[in-house]
């Protein structure tokens, strides 16, 4: 930073006014308090200050991530305010995060690609939500592919599939980016399931 000449004191000049001018100038040059976004480099000629804006941290609910080659995990997220369950590679049915917030053990992916990770929602005959389980499906196994509304095959057990992520070549493309609401209803006697962002 070049030093303005008027800040320097001359022989015989009273120091205190010059000192006050210097303090005011230093105060005026103060930029920001440093934190991990501000990088400061000291050089022989002065400081270099570099600020980096961080993107806002967004946690995507129900984020599906690959773990190794044939395993996957699902991050914390809610459907109708409930945590889904998932079958781990050891065959144990667990919540996607436990009561301490610890993520579940990885689950196994079906062989073959492309593949979808879906939330399979099961309703009771009175259309109350019963189970929400994360499973993997091939695209042609999705109920009523090509529409967001599903007609369940069985009247006694109403099932809907909510796609969460798609995987063709070893990486997941996330489909849903929000927590979700789901509900079943009957239209002309046929049960249907519909979902929407919460």
């Amino acid at each position: 930073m070049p030093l303005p000449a008027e800040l320097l004191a001359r022989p015989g000049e009273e120091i205190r006014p010059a000192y006050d001018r210097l303090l005011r100038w230093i105060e005026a040059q103060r930029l920001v308090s440093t934190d991990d976004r501000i990088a400061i480099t000291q050089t022989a000629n002065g400081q270099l200050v570099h600020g980096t804006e961080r993107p806002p941290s967004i946690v995507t609910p129900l984020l599906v991530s690959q773990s190794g080659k044939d395993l996957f995990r699902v991050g914390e997220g809610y459907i109708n305010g409930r945590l889904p369950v998932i079958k781990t590679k050891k065959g144990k049915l667990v919540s996607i995060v436990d009561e301490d917030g610890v993520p579940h053990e990885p689950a196994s992916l079906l062989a073959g690609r492309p593949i979808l990770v879906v939330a399979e929602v099961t309703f009771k005959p009175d259309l109350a939500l019963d189970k929400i389980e994360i499973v993997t499906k091939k695209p042609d196994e999705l109920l009523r592919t090509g529409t967001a509304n599903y007609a369940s095959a069985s009247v006694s057990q109403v099932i809907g599939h909510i796609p969460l992520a798609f995987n063709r070549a070893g990486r997941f493309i996330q489909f849903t980016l929000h927590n979700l609401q789901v509900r079943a209803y009957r239209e002309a006697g046929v049960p249907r399931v519909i979902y929407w962002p919460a």
Partner: protein
Amino acid sequence: MFFSYRQHNAAAEKAARLLPIRTSYAEAPSRPHPWQILPQWIAQPARPGGGYWAGSFVPGLVNGQPPAIRMPFVDAPADAFARVLKEREAAKRAKPKPEERVDVFLDEAAFVPFPWRAIGSDAAPTGSATGNADTGSIVASFEPVPEFFQRRGVTSANRNLLASAAQTQRYLRACDIVLNQPRVGFSNEITVGAVVDGSILAANPSFVTPLDQQPRVTAVPKFVQATPPTLNDFLVQRFTDAPLDQVLLATVYALSPALVPDPVVTSAWTIFVRQHVHWNLSHAGQRIRPRTELPRITFFTPLAGGVANLIIAQVLAENNDFSQALLDMYQQTRLAGMFYAV
């Protein structure tokens, strides 16, 4: 405390060394979103302009699956090329010819060439033109130039077709990127009968089933959203609903450098993308309702020994059939689906 002028100046110089001599700032990296278009110049020296602009995508999903782009097999990216060959082999079909169009999915780096339309001084009129005999002018309407590009030197077209073209500093081109989701469509044919055989009109409603449910992305010079058909539309002699739902994903603009003599799009043009959709989509098709049977009107009379019943029944049958057909149309014609973000 005694402070000499030398000590003061030494402190001032030290303070100047500690204060910043240069500050810089970097904005947060942008976060890609579904359907984000990534323009790229594809060099082909044989073409006018030396190549063409095309767009690939940050994959967006419809109902959890990526849409496809119909591309010439020869242009398919490596992954898609290998997949198509494998699928053909499994189906015991011949390898596609180089120009045969195959489905390449957005997550396989599919890309679509931009088919430009002109906006501004060298654009074509968009609607009908009206002549004025008194002034000797023919006035037409043109697509307006967005203000963003007006400020960059793109001039609106001269509305008087007989006057000389407006002078412009830059040329502007645009095209629309559209998502197409096939669905069941509706068709109807009205047949006119001869009155002597007891028939006047007959409606024959039916459904048009798409070949598949695969959503596809296309690029068109100008996208026009189809207006929902009215009952009058169904009653024209032959009506066929387009069996697909469409949504405009983005509009891509190409802006020429200043004062180019020839408005041929080259790699020197600047591409601007206006995104309209930023989220993955669900598509909900309409459910085709079970057919409601109208109660048929009948009338029996003992008059003339019941001979009149045949004639009356024939007359009523026409009425009944036409009423049923109208009810079918009323119930089943609204087949347009709905896109919504998830």
